[in-house]
């Protein structure tokens, strides 16, 4: 939908004082979001941000759109009821690794499999921030936190693998402090028809500072990061001298040159219906592999609210002007004089 009035970042800014810790990665995500929103061709009132509980979930308060700061883990379900009854709205879910993967894991997977046309942004800082520093479902095994002084015993969840397993039609990853990449990823998520799942690595400078420094430190980042682009070979490194090949079903890092050219390298295909490649990419984790960023998967799947609307339309057409009278009188009736 295009509007005569062009909106700017300022139009999406709320009057609320932002209360994240100074230096929090959430600030830069908010900044990119404010840049992206005016480009969507939507007025602020056509957008709703829904969140759960946690640091990330304060996000809706800071945008001048409609919004709901709901309860822990339940934002995907709130968004589902809203989108199903108001399909014309642009609905965004803001969640975190605790909110979305621990207490709200169930709602997340079911939202993904239903594939409503909503956008789910999961801010992953691998720690519980708002409750002051306990380990989260994405904290690495052995992590020392306030609730795991001897080290965490849990095996961490891989959010992208989980999303793919839940039949997500759009799966992407970005980083809080990569402004251009993040803005571009958010734009693509907004454009995707179906549920978009974006994991955003987000630094908690208070309880888990530097968790993603390998991806944010400009000096080393190129050696650890694989930027995916549809149709482009998977090449990485400051000198673009390494690439990814498939060894059977397993990705392997190879050095380019000496007989191995870019043409031997795996070419990214985000639109493959078969999720096997996306799954293999999601398993490539730092430090064993360069970690993939960008859109791992973007495929067309039927959209839930569209199918619900079609079902309703056909029921209406078949009913020939449904009325309460007809409803009440269905089945056997009798008259008492």
């Amino acid at each position, binding site marked *: 939908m295009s509007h005569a009035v062009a909106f700017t970042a300022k139009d999406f800014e709320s009057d609320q004082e932002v209360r994240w810790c100074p230096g929090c990665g959430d600030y830069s995500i908010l900044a990119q979001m404010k840049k992206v929103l005016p480009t969507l061709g939507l007025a602020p009132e*056509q957008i709703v941000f829904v969140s759960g509980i946690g640091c990330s979930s304060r996000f809706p308060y800071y945008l001048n759109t*409609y919004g*709901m700061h709901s309860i822990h883990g339940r934002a995907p379900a709130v968004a589902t*009821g809203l989108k199903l*009854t108001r399909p014309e709205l642009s609905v965004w879910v803001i969640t975190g690794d605790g909110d979305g993967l621990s207490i709200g894991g169930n709602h997340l997977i079911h939202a993904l499999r239903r594939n409503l046309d909503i956008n789910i942004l999961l801010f992953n800082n691998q720690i519980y921030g708002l409750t002051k520093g306990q380990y989260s479902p994405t904290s690495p095994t052995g992590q020392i936190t306030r609730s795991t002084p001897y080290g965490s015993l849990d095996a961490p969840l891989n959010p992208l693998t989980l999303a793919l397993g839940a039949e997500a039609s759009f799966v992407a990853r970005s980083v809080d402090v990569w402004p251009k990449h993040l803005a571009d990823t958010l734009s693509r998520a907004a454009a995707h028809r179906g549920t978009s799942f974006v994991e955003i690595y987000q630094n908690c400078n208070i309880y888990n500072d530097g968790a993603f420094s390998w991806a944010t430190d400009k000096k080393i980042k190129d050696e650890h990061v694989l930027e995916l682009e549809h149709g482009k070979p998977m090449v990485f490194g400051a000198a673009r001298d390494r690439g990814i090949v498939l060894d059977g079903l397993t990705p392997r890092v190879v050095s380019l040159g000496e007989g191995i050219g870019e043409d031997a390298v795996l070419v990214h295909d985000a639109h493959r219906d078969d999720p096997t490649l996306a799954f293999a990419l999601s398993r490539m984790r730092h430090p064993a592999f360069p970690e993939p960023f960008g859109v791992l998967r973007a495929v067309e799947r039927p959209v839930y609210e569209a199918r619900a609307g079609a079902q309703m339309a056909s029921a209406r057409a078949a009913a020939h002007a449904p009325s309460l009278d007809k409803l009440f*009188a269905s089945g*056997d009736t009798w008259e008492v004089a």
Partner: protein
Amino acid sequence: MAIATAGAPAAQVRTRERLESVTVRFAGDSGDGMQLAGTQLTNTSALSGNDVATFPDFPAEIRAPRGTLAGVSGFQVHFAARDILTPGDQVDTLVAMNPAALKQSLKELKPGGTLIVDVDAFDAKGLKLARYEHSPLDDDSLDGYQLVRAPITALTRKAVEDAGLGKKLSERCRNFFAMGLVYWIYGRSLEPTLRFIERRFGKDPAVAQADTLALNAGWNFGETTEALERCYHVPAARLAPGRYRNLTGNQALAYGLITAAQRSGKTLFYGSYPITPASDILHELSRHKAFGVHTFQAEDEIAAITSAIGAAYGGAMAVTASAGPGIALKGEALGLAVMLELPLLVLNVQRGGPSTGLPTKVEQSDLLQAMFGRSGEAPLPVLAASGPGDCFEVVQEAWRLAVRLMTPVVVLSDAYVANGAEPWRIPEPGDLAPIAVDHPGASDGTQPFHPYARDALLARPWALPGTPGLAHRVGGLEKQDITGDVSYDPDNHEHMVGVRARKIANAVRLIPEQSVDGPADGALLVLSWGGSYGPAAEAVRRARGAGLDVAHCQLRYLNPMPANLGSLLKRYRKVLIPELNTGQLRMLVRARYLVDAIGLNKVQGRPFSADEVLARIFELSDEGTDA
């Protein structure tokens, strides 16, 4: 002996004795089709003009091992030539399809009542499964009843031979034979059931033929057997004029929701997770997408209510339902709805608890959960339906309060009300006045929008996403009054707790004063709520017939209670509260009005009989005389 044409009035064969009211119970194995038999007798009786009340009584297991006591499924039908309020205290005719059914149900049969047994099922295996040492048909234990030894299995098999179904399928027609026999005893027309067979089994002609043959064979058996000394006729009741149909409580809730959505011009969103005994509301609503009804089977109870909250924020008529355990799971989200001040209906079809408890059996033990089952100070209106037909009214009333006050509202039903059926007078379109809903319109943004500004009853505006100039954020954190901004200010919190409480208290200005059936003051008031209405009202009716000074009051509005309730209660020397819990309404009434109410309490997974309430009324009257 002459054989009457099945379905024709049998008056020419034997004289039918006139009865005012009859209670029949079909009891058999879960797979024997007893619910179908009971439902058919109900519809047939209603169509012949009787008032009817039913009590389906079935186990939680879908198919417990065949022939066992655990697998007995029963359906009790009360039909009468007058208006009735209960499914009958004692059974006039019991049909026992196997020994287990006899063992479980015999206590319901009145002395001298008619007992029809399928003798073919009383073999060594059947007796052993029912834990009978020897056959009760062979000793004198059934002497006090009019025993009809009917070889139902053998006769059914023979009767349906022509349909060519084979032994197993043939025997599945036994329930139709039993129905035919009962229809003969009470002179019921076969027509409605024949129509049903055509509708349900028309696509399978062999099955339709066999069921028809079995039904007729049962009728003919009644006609010819000498075991039945009498046959009866129950004339039509004098119900209020109008067009009627049968309706169960859960159907009535579904119809009421659709009606309320139409009356308020709203899209109905029903978020639900399957749970006994509430699932039939989901089943019913999911058939009515033509009315723009969104039914959403969520991944769990929490998603069921939170999806409804999302829909409510978007402007839909949002509803969720469950039974006690599911309501417990919804508790946190219900607190959110209180904080957000959004309209939402939460239906609780109560069942025996705690925990999984008695999933298919009735209890009224979630009243205090409805009142208080949330964190913090989180009041909301609570209404309860008195019977199947009342469910239709109560949900619409709940929605009227929810939108007027911008609040979630809990509606209590129970397994007895949900599954029971009664004749329902179809409302005229003119009876259904619009329910007013206001949404603030677009603003140019020059004035800040205040989502927590309030009207005279303290309700806040319901501003919908999509409205220019009204963009606002809501959430579970405490808000500053008027602006809705997050606020941790201590005085503001106390103020807001008070505002939310006063808003709910303001519901008394929207609801009628409490009425009483009977004398306006005196010796005893029976105060009932929810599904205990029928037995309480019937007991009071009988007690007054016996000359006792007793009145009856049915409380639909449990929170807030009607403004005059306190003074009303004090006009009686004693207040008796019958409820299927250990005294929950009694606790509220005592706390609120300092009235020393007396409880009549039962938690056996079964409704009160009118006799039980009546006995307590007599006891209290005797005590009164002694004093």
